[in-house]
């Protein structure tokens, strides 16, 4: 009887009861869930951001020398591309377990796995970007006395930046999404909440975490667009 009364109360006056994410109601969108579990959500989001940023930066640090190597030695290029594409083909749920014997059940496993995926995209876009630099520009720079290093850093990289940034955006957005799979080894950021939401049939948790993932991806993308605008002021003049 009391149960019935309670249920009725929850339905009638949800303001008084611990309502919209309770077992009986289990709503998808629930503000109270966000308020009550704020700390948990923030922790998961911070872990998500951390894993994503470290993975993309690591991917970039490996991709840069690889791309330069591929450019210097054209014979290496096809094998570098073949190996990275091969890694890319392996599903994330299989790649993480394959790393476990070496890195254990840790955040490192997820970070390395995601960095390997980002690497594939970044190597390609770095190569495409450097290739997009017009030969005349390169020749005039050499004629002006630029050495190999300053040619790369002062002429080629800035001109390659739009293509490289396009690749970086793609890599970052997909890394944000893939981080969720890290919940397999318990380091999945918001993916941990999604997994818990599925296991316990907790709709508010599942929905909030999913929406936050997409929001994170959009925010990262917007930040990178902003960064590109700041780094390439000359392209704005052309467009205007």
């Amino acid at each position, binding site marked *: 009887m009391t149960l019935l009364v309670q249920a009725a109360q929850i339905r009638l006056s949800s303001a008084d009861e611990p309502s919209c994410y309770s077992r009986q109601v289990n709503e998808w969108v629930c503000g109270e869930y966000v308020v009550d579990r704020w700390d948990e959500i923030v922790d998961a989001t911070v872990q998500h951001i951390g894993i994503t940023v470290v993975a993309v930066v690591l991917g970039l640090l490996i991709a840069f020398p690889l791309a330069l190597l591929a450019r210097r030695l054209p014979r290496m290029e096809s094998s570098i591309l073949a190996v990275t*594409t*091969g890694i*890319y*083909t*392996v*599903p*994330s*749920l*299989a*790649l*993480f*377990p*394959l790393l*476990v*014997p070496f890195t254990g059940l840790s955040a490192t496993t997820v970070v390395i796995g995601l960095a390997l*995926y980002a690497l*594939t*995209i970044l190597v*390609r*876009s770095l190569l*495409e*970007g450097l*290739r*997009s630099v017009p030969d005349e520009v390169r020749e005039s720079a050499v004629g002006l006395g630029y050495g190999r290093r300053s040619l790369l850093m002062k002429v080629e990289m800035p001109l390659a930046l739009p*293509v490289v940034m*396009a*690749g970086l955006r*793609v*890599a970052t*957005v*997909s890394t*944000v*999404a*893939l981080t*969720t*799979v890290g*919940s*397999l*080894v318990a380091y999945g950021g918001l*993916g941990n909440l*999604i*997994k818990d*939401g*599925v296991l316990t*049939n907790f*709709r508010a948790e*599942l*929905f909030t*975490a*999913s929406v936050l*993932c*997409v929001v994170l*991806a*959009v925010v990262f*993308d917007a930040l990178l667009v902003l960064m590109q605008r700041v780094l390439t002021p000359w392209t704005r003049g052309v467009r205007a």
Partner: protein
Amino acid sequence: MTVLTDMWAYLSDPANWTGSDGILALMAEQLLLTFTALLMAMVLGLPLALWLGHLGRGGFLAINISNIGRAVPTFALLALLVVAPWPGTDSFGPYGRAGLATLIALTLFALPPIITNSYVAMREVAPDVREAARGMGMTGRQQFWRVELPLGLPLVMSGLRLALVQVWATATIAALVAGPGLGRIITDGFFRSNYGKGIAGAVVVAAVALVLEMAAALAQRAADPARRTGASTPAGGHDDALSVTGATVESSAESVG
């Protein structure tokens, strides 16, 4: 490194390969899921994208659908579908537990690479080739079937190839929400601290993924009209069109899931 020994023990035990929960049965289930979803995505996406590309309309949508697809985590979408009242976790014919939810998620994730690549393939046919076709008096339909489609076919095929890889990866993730497929060996192993089993499952999934990718690459090569006729310079310089930065970044850059 005892995990690796466990893994080998799991893989070399024939009992783990046979039976209704064996590797072979799960692999068949996942392959069935993969090809059904790919077929559904082709039926839904190919005609629309090719037609829009032919007309040159709806480009914004066709390009951006890939960006949206990349931002939505496959795991989150699967989880939402499984927890929702419909399609839920009900068994669906030969597709196993949560079969319908998995099929829907797989189809949705196969659509972006197919739509974007097919659209770009139609748009990247060199304008002078298109103009020449019109000058010869070809109707819109003839232009599409005899000029645009043959020239765009390699890029369309590369979209299908990406979709295949993507669908296989997503089908693996279905196991994270207790769905069908080989991923179940991985999640079973990990959630019950039987890491050897988990890693064994991962090896099988990765091996099949590589085989599928290689088979798709061969199919793609076979569909390239320039290579098939052995011509050294393809008509309309479409080799250049294929290597333009935009299309290449797009086509190499789908999230794996």
